């Protein structure tokens, strides 16, 4: 079964001095988020950006895939904390993503935890969609 998720953005003016807003998304979970080129390429000043949204998409996708992998392995996670750090080089584009995960899992060695995290990194749909950039992983039991 296919699932569609849509986002709508409005923009006014040119790139450098104009500004935009992520007005609405399918779920209604957020809206009215301002974006601009200076906030994207320099200091964010509280504004989100495509790269921050990618960080959110990737960390949430990886967490879910990892929790699924751990549960299938009969070692379900009590808690996972995941950070995705997306690097953007203006003029070049997205130049790397670093995933950091710390987890609380009963009865699992750190080595097995790292192995399962690697599998989740490869398998998560957002990792596959962004496979054109370098994705690195730092995984350890908390």
């Amino acid at each position: 079964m296919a699932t569609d998720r849509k986002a709508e953005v409005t923009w006014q003016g040119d790139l450098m001095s104009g500004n935009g807003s992520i007005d609405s998304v399918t779920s209604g979970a957020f809206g009215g988020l301002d974006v601009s080129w200076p906030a994207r390429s320099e200091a964010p000043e509280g504004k989100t950006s495509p790269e921050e949204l990618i960080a959110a998409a990737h960390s949430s996708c990886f967490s879910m895939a990892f929790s699924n992998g751990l549960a299938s392995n009969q070692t379900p996670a009590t808690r996972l904390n995941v950070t995705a750090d997306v690097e953007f080089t203006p003029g070049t584009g997205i130049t790397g993503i670093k995933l950091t995960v710390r987890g609380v899992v009963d009865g699992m060695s750190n080595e097995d935890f790292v192995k399962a995290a690697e599998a989740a990194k490869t398998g998560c749909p957002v990792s596959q969609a962004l496979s054109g950039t370098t994705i690195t992983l730092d995984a350890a039991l908390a």
Partner: protein
Amino acid sequence: MPRVQREANVTWAGNVARGSGAISAGTGAFDELPYSLATRIERPDGKTSPEELLAAAHAACFAMSVASELTSAGTPPEHLDVTATVTLDQVEDGSHRIVSSELLARARVTGVDAAGFERLAQAASEGCTLSKLIEASAKVTVNARLEGGTDGD
């Protein structure tokens, strides 16, 4: 140009079927957005998902690219509306894959005709870093429409 870092953090508790997570932005632009497997692959029930966040990222990236292309062509937009629709589908081995992102740009702009706008929108997608990444594994389509002006009809 210096490199820019943006981060987001997620905490996840419980197994995948019944657990849930919360997503927070480094900038504070959004905080503790809840999500779960059921709302990701079925009805959203007000909850965001990785694919929705990817759609938001792609729409914002593409909007900036279209604004840039129109400005370079000497015809900056008066108003631009962009949507991105990301589709997650189950593939043969039972796993889920992001199969497409469909972009639509609607612009009010003086001095560009419909064909010219379509060309610029196509170039804007090629210039958007996310289109390039997504295209490696999924289909990116671009649709462009002029609105409300006297040009391009």
